[in-house]
């Protein structure tokens, strides 16, 4: 694990240096940093600030301003319920509530077993398929609240099986 972390840090520093010639690239760097680490913990923010010679507060200010950046690790499956207007008028709220009560977590939280993170997203632009739920990168169109337990059930058994077979830890 520590070796992996070092590797990631080296990649981060390389990324920062690659951008250093252009002005105003903090958001670009943070995007790539989030790709590398999955989220933006304090350590990563400090590293970016140090390498760019700017105050940590400035980095943190940007990280907390934009909804795209996460400061907490995400679960293995990211469930995004589209809350654009088109999805909303077609019942997205009921779907979102069903996910919340089934998973026992609130928006932006991750289940204790680290499997699911639940988020709502602004319009993904697939309004023709409303209401839409995005599971990882897979888009489920014309979704209903009734489909929630099914989707979660599949994923849970699927993931447990995969985790078991892989012999993690």
């Amino acid at each position: 694990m520590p070796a992996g972390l070092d590797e990631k840090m080296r990649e981060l520093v390389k990324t920062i240096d690659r951008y250093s010639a252009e002005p105003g690239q903090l958001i670009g760097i943070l995007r790539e940093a989030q790709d590398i680490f999955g989220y933006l913990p304090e350590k990563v923010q400090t590293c970016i600030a140090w390498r760019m010679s700017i105050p940590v507060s400035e980095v943190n200010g940007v990280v907390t301003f934009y909804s795209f950046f996460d400061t907490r690790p995400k679960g293995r499956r990211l469930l995004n319920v589209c809350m654009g207007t088109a999805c909303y008028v077609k019942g997205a709220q009921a779907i979102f509530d069903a996910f919340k009560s089934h998973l026992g977590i609130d928006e932006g939280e991750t289940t204790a077993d680290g499997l699911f993170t639940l988020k709502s997203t602004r319009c993904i632009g697939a309004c023709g398929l409303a209401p839409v739920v995005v599971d990882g990168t897979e888009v489920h169109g014309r979704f209903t609240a009734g489909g929630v337990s099914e989707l979660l059930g599949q994923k849970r058994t699927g993931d447990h099986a995969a985790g078991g077979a892989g012999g993690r830890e």
Partner: protein
Amino acid sequence: MQVSRIDDLKKVKEQYLPLVGSRLGHDGGSGLAQVMVCSGTACASSESRVLLQELAAQIAGRGLQERVRVLKTGCFGFCQQGPVVMVHPGGVFYCRVKKEDIEKLVGKHLAEGQVVEELLYHEPGSGRKAGKINEIHFFQAQRRIVLRNCGVINPEDINEYIARDGYLALGEILENRRSRQEVIDIVSRSGLRGRGGAGFPTGRKWELAATQENTPKYVLCNADEGDPGAFMDRSILEGDPHGVLEAMAVAGYCIGANQGYIYVRAEYPIAVERLQIALKQAKEMGLLGKSLFGSGFDFDVALRFGAGAFVCGEETALLQSVMGGRGEPRPRPPYPVQEGLWGKPTVINNVETFANIPVILREGWEWYSGQGTATSKGSKVFSLAGKINNTGLIEVPMGTTLRTIIFDIGGGIPGGQRFKAVQTGGPSGGCIPAEHLDRPIDYDSLREIGSMMGSGGMIVMDESDCMVDIARFYLEFTQDESCGRCTPCRVGTRRMLEIFQKITGGQAGMEDLDLLAELSRDVRDASLCGLGQTAPNPVLSTMRYFYDEYVAHVRDKVCPAGVCRDLLTYTVDKEKCVACGLCAKACAVGALTGEPKKPYQIDPEKCVRCAACLAKCPKEAIRRSSRVAAPVVE
């Protein structure tokens, strides 16, 4: 190939025109069939990627590779019928194509030249089959200017854009040494107004920037389409990215800028990818970079990514974000054309505005200004969504009525429901009731009736939508997106939202409605930027047109549309229930109990009104009703 003269463009056009022309109905007799697979976000979400793979496999399996070419294309706009596949020559339009259908499509149409009848679009009502795209009413009723290349060209191939006279306008200006002022005059006379929402005259903006002496200057394209339910800009970028690049170079020439930036939403991965490809190809061909068309004019474009903040649609906030900072607005003046990126003059235009420029320059301002209304020229792209049959993207001349858009092109309201309102302009706009359906719409007429053009999102609502809840929904959005810089917006929208929570929770009094209206006006008048100034619009417009619904919530504690959860109850219809138990399985809080052969029951204390049971019940035995009016304590 390098393009350094107009003649080079012509050579590319000659080479690619037969291919592209065959898609427009000019059969070159090449004997080549072309299969266009819509690869916009909506169709890609509904598996057009799988179709592409399957097509390639089937075509190879039958040895048709020599005669058939499969291409990705941008959004056709008929998202409701996606995934869409078109076959040329002939312009045969197949809709809702599934993986299993590909075998037939290849075997019958491509191998034997016979149209696959069952995959054609049926006009609702008449049931008439539309064999070709131009026989479909949805397309017949539109006038595509900005979207003219979407669905026609492969957006990942610059040569196809050139075959449609792409980069010709830029080349003509640079090679013939037209003066900046001459070009700005054309844009001004065309009457083009900014498509981002506010409608500022584009030519005037360019002129203001051109007269600034401070250098360097910048051109900035706003592709941070933040309105939920709007996807015009995304579709243009996905379907015709070079049109925007060409227009940015023209703008750069006019104002004297050598660098452009496109600020694009990170949530639009396909648009970002297409832009990256387009930039790479344009640079390789010398259509971006040093000394374009040998004129000595340099222009380059780079991408900057939005990271999910609605306030960045406000131009001064957008500038901060492009420079990598927190997207907080600042007071104007100075305007961005005076002090923009890094304190230098900057022209900011929206994607759709830029997409109009090449057409105006090629066809002339006289032609362009001949369309639309007295104060709003040209056409407008709208995205239709919500309770409407033909969800998708349309383009109509300015001044078209809402009735034409919603009932004729949009195909009306599904499920026999009645039209209640259409919301235009997203969280900054308002709800328009049925009485204004026959109004020709442009920037000014929409403002008169309490809404706004916005970027062009239209959400249609029917009788089952609660207007109070819709206003609350938008306010929750703007409240969440308020950047916190100024107090009226930061605190005002919060207080307004609290009043809404009281109203939808059945705890408000009539005096709260007066307070809400007063607060709305204060937030509108006192906020620093467009976000706060327009945030009360959904509230004010719904109070103006649907005040009776507010009264029902407050005085009678009833939600007439049956949406506001705290005012609803769920019960099981004992006659219909077959005791299958599916509802109990769907319920996450264990509110449903029962036993075999006996009707199930809902415990109102446990029920969280999530409606999961309602969605799951196969017999429609779960009933939702407005709560019985509680006695009002005066």
